[in-house]
C-alpha cells in the first residue's frame, strides 16, 4: 500500500507564490504609483533602450536648437560674420555654427559645424570621411549638420502634433463620456466619418487644398493643425470609454454628494484616473506622428525650405543607388526615433497596465 510521505508535502507555505509574483511584490514595496511604474520600466531592457534613445534625441533636438539660435543671435548682433578665416572679408552669410563667448578671441571662435544651409559647392557629393562623417549632399551641405539641426523640426513637429491631437481628443472624449446622450451620438458619428478615410490620403488632400494659406509657422503649421483636427478620434474613443466606466464609481458619487461641480469632477477626479492610457497614447502616437510627417515630406508634401529629416529624405531619395549616404542618414534617424518611441511606449504600457503584459 502506497503511503504519502508527509515530509514531501509543502506544508510550510500556505500561499504558493511563484518567483515572478514575489519579485513584483518586492517592486511595489513602499512606493507611489509613478515610482512603481519607473521601477518596472527600469527592469525592462528594451524599454530602457527606448528611453535612452528618446532621451538622446530630445537632448540633440534641444542642443541643436540652442546652438542655432545662439549662432543666429551672434550674427544678427554683428559679433560674428560667420566666416572663420581671418582676413577674409567675404560674404556676411552665416557659413559655420560657431561658439563664441565674450572674452574669447573674436577672430578664432570654436567652429562646431558647417551651417546647415551653407552650400559649399566645391565639396559636393563627398562620401563619409573624417572631415564629413556623414558625407556631403549634392549641394555641398554637410549631412552631419543637416541631420543634427534637422532634429529640432522633426521632433518638435511630432511632439506638437501629437500633443494637440491628444488634447483635442481628451477634451471631446471627456465631454462625450461624461454627459453621454446626444453629444456622445454626434461625436461617434463624426469619428466614424473621419475614420472611414485613410488618414494619410486625407492629409495629402487637405495639404494640397490649403497650401496657399499664409499663417505664421509656414506650411508645417497648416500640416500640424489639420493633422490634429482629423486625428483626435482614437484618443476620444478611449477616453470616452474610460469615463463611462469611471463615472459610475463610488468616489464620483461621493464627490457629487459633496456638491462638486461637473468640471471639478471631470478634471480633478476622473481625468487623473484615466491618465495611464493617455500617456501610452502620447508616447506611441509620437512615433506614428513623426512617421506620418516624414512620409508626407517624402512624397513632396512637406516644406522644402525647412531643415528636417523628411525633407532631406525627399530631396535625395532618387540618389539612393549612386550616393547612398545622402538619403540614408536622415532615414536612419527617422527609424531610430520611431523605434525609440515604440520601445518606450510598449514598456510604458506594460508598466502602467501589467494585466496586458504577455
Amino acid at each position, binding site marked *: 500500500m502506497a503511503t504519502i510521505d508527509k515530509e514531501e508535502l509543502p506544508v510550510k507555505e500556505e500561499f504558493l507564490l511563484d518567483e515572478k509574483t514575489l519579485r513584483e511584490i518586492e517592486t511595489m514595496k513602499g512606493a507611489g504609483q509613478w515610482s512603481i511604474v519607473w521601477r518596472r520600466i527600469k527592469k525592462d531592457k*528594451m524599454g530602457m533602450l527606448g528611453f535612452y534613445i528618446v532621451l538622446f534625441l530630445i537632448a540633440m533636438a534641444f542642443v541643436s536648437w540652442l546652438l542655432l539660435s545662439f549662432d543666429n543671435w551672434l550674427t544678427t548682433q554683428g559679433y560674428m560674420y560667420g566666416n572663420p578665416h581671418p582676413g577674409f572679408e567675404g560674404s556676411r552669410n552665416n557659413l559655420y555654427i560657431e561658439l563664441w563667448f565674450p572674452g574669447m578671441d573674436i577672430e578664432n571662435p570654436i567652429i562646431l559645424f558647417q551651417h546647415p544651409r551653407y552650400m559649399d559647392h566645391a565639396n559636393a557629393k563627398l562620401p563619409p570621411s573624417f572631415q564629413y562623417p556623414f558625407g556631403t549632399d549634392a549641394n555641398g551641405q554637410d549631412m552631419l549638420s543637416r541631420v543634427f539641426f534637422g532634429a529640432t523640426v522633426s521632433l518638435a513637429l511630432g511632439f506638437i502634433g501629437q500633443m494637440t491631437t491628444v488634447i483635442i481628443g481628451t477634451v471631446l472624449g471627456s465631454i462625450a463620456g461624461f454627459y453621454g446622450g446626444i453629444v456622445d451620438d454626434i461625436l461617434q*458619428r463624426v469619428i*466614424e*466619418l473621419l*475614420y*472611414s*478615410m*485613410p*488618414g*494619410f*490620403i*486625407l492629409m*495629402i*488632400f*487637405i495639404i*494640397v*487644398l*490649403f497650401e*496657399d*494659406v499664409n499663417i505664421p509657422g509656414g506650411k508645417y503649421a497648416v500640416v500640424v493643425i489639420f493633422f490634429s483636427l482629423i486625428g483626435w478620434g482614437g484618443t476620444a474613443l478611449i477616453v470616452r470609454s474610460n469615463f463611462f466606466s469611471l463615472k459610475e464609481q463610488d468616489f464620483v458619487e461621493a464627490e457629487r454628494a459633496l456638491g462638486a461641480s461637473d468640471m471639478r469632477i471631470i478634471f480633478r477626479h476622473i481625468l487623473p484616473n484615466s491618465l495611464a492610457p493617455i500617456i501610452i497614447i502620447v508616447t506611441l502616437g509620437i*512615433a506614428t506622428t513623426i*512617421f506620418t510627417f*516624414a*512620409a508626407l515630406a*517624402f*512624397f*513632396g*508634401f512637406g516644406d522644402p525650405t525647412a531643415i528636417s529629416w523628411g525633407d532631406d*529624405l525627399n530631396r535625395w*531619395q532618387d540618389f*539612393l*543607388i549612386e550616393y*547612398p549616404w545622402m*538619403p540614408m542618414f536622415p*532615414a536612419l534617424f*527617422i*527609424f531610430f526615433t*520611431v*523605434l525609440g518611441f*515604440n*520601445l518606450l511606449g510598449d514598456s510604458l504600457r506594460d508598466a502602467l497596465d501589467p494585466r496586458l503584459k*504577455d
Partner: protein
Amino acid sequence: MSLRGFIVRRTIYIIPVMLGITLMNFTLINISPGDPVIVRIGLIQCNTVECYNNAYNKEAIEMGLLSKDLYTVPWFERYVEFVNNLLHFDFGRSWYYEQAGQGMPISQIIGERAVYTITLNILSFIFSLLLATAIGVVSATRQNSFWDRSLTVAMLLGYSMPLFWLAKLLMLMSYYMFKFTGVANKDAFETPLIINGSFYKYLILPTLALTLGGLVFMARLVRSQLLEILRQDYVVTAKAKGLDRRAVIYKHAFRNGLLPIVTIIGNSLPGLLAGSVMVERVFGWPGLGTVFLEGALFRDYPLMMATNTIFPFLFLVARLLTDITYVFIDPRIKY
C-alpha cells in the same frame, strides 16, 4: 433578425457614411483658399483683360461654378449635381491626365488603373496574412525561445521602419544583388497582363514591400492574441485531456483567436491602403495610389475628389465584409 436582414442593413448603412464623406470633401474644397478656376487655367496668354475674363468665365461655366448667365451656382446645387454624377459613375474629366487635347474621363482612368492596385493589394494581403499567422503561431507556442525572441525583435525593427523607406531599401538591395531596381516601365503593362511575363517580374518587389509592411503589423497581433488565449482555462483542459499539441493550437486556441484578429485587420485596412499608395509611388506602379499622388501634386481637383470617394468606399466595403465574416467565425454573435 435574419442573416440576410443584417447584411442588407449593414449595406444600406454605407450610404449615409458615403454622403457624409463626400460632403466633407466637398466642403473642404469649397473653404480652401485660392480660386480653382485660376488653378485650372494657369498661365494663360492674354493681352487684354477682356480676353482673360472670357477665358475665366468659359472655364468657370464648364466647371459648373457659374451658371450660363454668369450667376454663381450655390454650393448645395453643385453638391447635388456631384452626387447625381457619382450615381452615374461620372467623375468628370481629369485636369492633369490628357488625351487628344482634352482631359481623360476619370472613370476611364480609374477603370484602367484599378486592376493594378487590386492585384498588388490582394496578393500582398494574402501573403502577409499567411506569413503573419505562421510567425505568430511559432512565436506564441514557443514563447521566450530563441525563435520567438529573434522574430519579435525583427518584427519590432520592421514595425519602426517607415514603409516607404523599406521599399527603397528593397530596391537598393535588389539593385546590388540582381542589377534590377524594380521601377516599373512601359512594357510591364502590355495587355493581356496574364501572359505578360515582365508584369510578374515587376510585380515582385512591390508585393514584397507591401507584404512586409502588413506582416510586421499583423504578426505582433497574432502573437499577443494567441498568447492570451493559450493561458485560458479551456486550453489547459484540452492539454490535460491529452490532446495532440497541434490539435490544441489549431482547433482550440487559433479559432478563438481569429475574432479579435479579424476585427483589428478590418480596422487597419485604411492603413494598408495608405501603405499601398506609398509602395506604388516608390516603384512607379501605375495603380490608383500613383494616380492619386500625381493628381495631388498637380492640383487635379476632380481626380482627387474621385479618389477620395473611391478609397473610403473600398474601405467601407472591406469593413462590411469583415463584419459579415464575424458572423461566420463566431456563432455567438447576435446580429
